[in-house]
């Protein structure tokens, strides 16, 4: 009787051991690799990384940029880019345009600010930044940036006119009717003044 019980106990224990052993060694279906894997991140960036380091590509058609710009901006962008004399600023403006057409406003802003690190008094870069903030509906920022552009835009009537247009639109959006009217008056003034 005792023998029988002992044998039963032993066999049960062995069975439990075997079960536990195999359960201990079993793998789960999902697990996280403990080491970071940046391969996905890197490859996803590679597409935008191809056009690094702004290149003066004379083969690039200005019209191709125009087609993708928000209506109302096309004439402004063309005249602004045409008037900009610095190749560095021009390169950043073109870069910003590229990002804008891709719908990536944050990168457009980053590109323009990078340009301002190098040419902090370039009124076209400030103007373009104001325009971008206007699109982002950051009205107060757009006004300040347009004013900043005007501070360096002496003698460039078309650019000043554009800046005042931005200010007028932003003030309208903010409900500042008086301010918007004054800005529109300035637009008119720069429309009639010769450069």
């Amino acid at each position, binding site marked *: 009787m*005792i023998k029988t019980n*002992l044998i039963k*106990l032993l066999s049960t*224990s*062995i069975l*439990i*051991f075997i079960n*536990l*052993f195999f*359960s*201990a*060694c079993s*793998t*789960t279906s999902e*697990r*996280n*690799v*403990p*080491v*970071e*894997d*940046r*391969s996905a*991140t*890197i490859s996803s*960036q*590679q597409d*935008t*990384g*191809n056009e*690094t*380091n*702004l*290149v*003066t590509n004379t083969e690039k058609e200005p019209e191709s940029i125009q087609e993708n710009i928000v209506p109302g901006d096309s004439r402004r962008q063309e005249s602004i880019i045409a008037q900009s004399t610095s*190749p*560095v600023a021009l*390169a950043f403006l073109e870069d910003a345009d590229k990002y804008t057409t891709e719908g990536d406003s*944050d*990168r457009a*802003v*980053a*590109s323009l*600010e*990078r340009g*301002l*690190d*190098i040419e*902090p*008094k370039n009124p076209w870069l400030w103007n373009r*930044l104001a325009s971008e903030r206007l699109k982002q509906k950051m009205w107060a*920022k757009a006004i*300040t*940036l347009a*004013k*900043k552009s*005007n*501070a*360096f835009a*002496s003698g460039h009537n078309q650019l000043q006119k554009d800046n005042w247009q931005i200010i007028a639109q932003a003030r309208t959006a903010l409900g500042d009717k008086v301010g918007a009217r004054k800005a529109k008056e300035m637009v008119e003034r720069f429309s009639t003044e010769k450069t």
Partner: protein
Amino acid sequence: MTRKKKRTQTKKKISRKSKAGKSGTGRTSSSYKYLILQLFVISLLCGTAYVVWLNHRVTSEFEGKRWSLPARVYARPLELYIGATITKNELSKVFNSLAYQHVASLHGPGQYHKQANSIRFISRNFDFWDRREQSKRIQIEFLAGKIQSITDETNAKQLVIFRLEPQLIGKIYPEHNEDRVLVPYDEVPVFLVEALVAVEDRHFYRHFGIDLKGILRAMISNITSGGLRQGGSTLTQQLVKNYFLTRERTFRRKINEVIMAVLLERHYSKAEIMSAYINEIYLGQHGARGVHGFGTAAEFYFSRPLNELKNDEIALLVALVRGASYYNPRKHPDRALKRRNLILNLMQQQGYLSTAEANKEIARPLKISEKPSWSSAKYPAFLDLVRRQLQKNYQTEDLRNEGLRIFTTLNTRYQDIVEQSVQKRLASLEKRKQLSTGTLQAAGVITSVETGEVLVLVGGRNKNSNDFNRALDAIRPIGSLVKPAVYLTALMQADKYNSLTLIEDKPVSLKQYDGSAWEPENYDNKTHGNVALHTALSKSYNLATVNLGLKLGLNKGVKTLHALGIEAEIPEYPSLLLGSLNLSPLQVTQMYQTLASGGFQVPLRTIKEVLDKDGKPLQRYGLELKQTVESKSAFMIRHLLSEVASSGTARSIAARMPGSLPLAGKTGTTNELRDSWFAGFGDDVLGVIWLGRDDNQSSRLTGASGALQLWIDIMQGLRPRPLSFITPEGIEWANILHDQRVQDDCLHAVAYPFVQAYLPDISGTCQNDVIQKFIQEKNIQDIKVERKDDKNESNKATINKHFNIH
């Protein structure tokens, strides 16, 4: 009872007794067997439970493991563009700071080669916030100290601009002080894996976590020696030891190690185990911080990423596995070299290297960087400000553990120039003023005028010290640095004040709360009567300033200071007009930032972007600005400050940097010459310098003799752009001679800006008329120009022509 019956009973008794004796012996042996069996079962169950627990530990900790990664802090990247002012030698220094190797011919990223008028290099891949800059082969050509062309040699394209990867300037460490650079398995050099297998675990790809032969060998050795002398540990076991267990050398730990190694191999692939090993293994000590993983070790010993190391360098790192301290190449180079060569020989024996290759690697000398390029001691004052600004948005734990990548505004080239200038100038001033070495202290901030980015921050003369950060925390009276705010307040009332408005430089006596009289004096102890506003500021007349400020009203002056960006509480006492206002150099910089940028307040910032450890953008700190001072007034005060630099109290600038004019600024000196200040700017950079003593004794220096001289030393290195005066709407320039407006063609007049609506009438006589008459009367044929600084021959011709002298 008969004898027969008695005999039978006895026999029965004997028989029963013998039976009883047999079953007592039988009972004892059964009990032992039962006990042993029980013990065996219990042991089995306990053992099983223990293994189950270890298994849980292995899987949960290994899978759930997130290494605490320090945050990495980068300086601003150098932008190379056509026309950039940088020489070939300056660019070489930048490459050295980025741990690029100067080579005869380019083979891989992180190498450069200097030629006569150009530099060629292969850049490294780098993930910026906005994009990945791929590695490129570039040639830069220089002409007259500027970049003339940039060529992408890969496709022969001319570039307008190229961005180098930024320098790593520091880290913010986890609390357990482990330093780690994670290296993904697909970026691990193959040679490293081969070396580890060859040296540490030859059967790595064949065993199941433990190498039985190796264990047996070690056991025999340990038994015969009476202790743990030899290890037969596999890489897996080493990983388990580093990852989960302590370093104690006991049998218990060894048993755990063996079981866990088997379990680890059961659950994870060889690649995963190798990858974890490469990122976990302890390879050195940097002060209080452990250097963990080969990625970190590559930076620590060679200041280069792991994938740029040569085979001999990788072999050296593998040598450290057996004893990072014992084989430390900085402390024990001979030992390290010997072990490295042993490893290279071993690899040759096992067929990983040919004889020729091995010999070539063995012949290379040991070349370790003196110290890690990212030593956080390098720019402690700047990193201090970065940390303070980060803590507004991030928890300390996140900063320490999440492997954030922080991109800052520091310009390391400028920082090095400023630090060197501080050392040199302080030593010279101490000598001149007969002060003992180390008496004077300095603090400085350099920013970008239009964007408010902090390019340089110096917290004291000891550049490597973590002590008191004077740039942020030395709150000192600013003296005459306050005066531009007073004069700006006046200029804002364009109908009443302009540059020519006469103000009274006459004695002032005001009763204070305690009944005593406050009677300020000019620096020269003289009064100057009625003086033009521009002269009072240029010469920094105290009495004129106080009279003007009191007339305007102290509250207006305070309002202007707030508009300029001073957030601190400002007491409205008359002494405020002479700078009885305590600010830090950083706060002063904020104030002058608004003046320099034409009335646009730009918050000073050190951080541009923050990415997570995978390079995903987390936050961007974009350009923020607001116009707080109207543009016409801001323009005029800026112009007046340029006069301070050309002919006022800061005229040393004109003397020492004539080619850089116009520049602008203001000197500041406090009572008993305790503080020497200068704040000045060009078109692109603003610099604020403070000199003084920590014990608040007299520095024996005025703003002009102390801080200004250091500022000039610095700017001679930084080469700021001269001020441009782009006239805003509503401003008109008029010629002024002897503080009166004169006609436009007046030869000796100087142009000043005025609000158009309040342009002063012409009231002065041009000297031309007087001279013309004199020339005609005397029949003068030629005029020789004797002005000291007039070296321009064409001026003589102009003058002769002007006076119709032929």
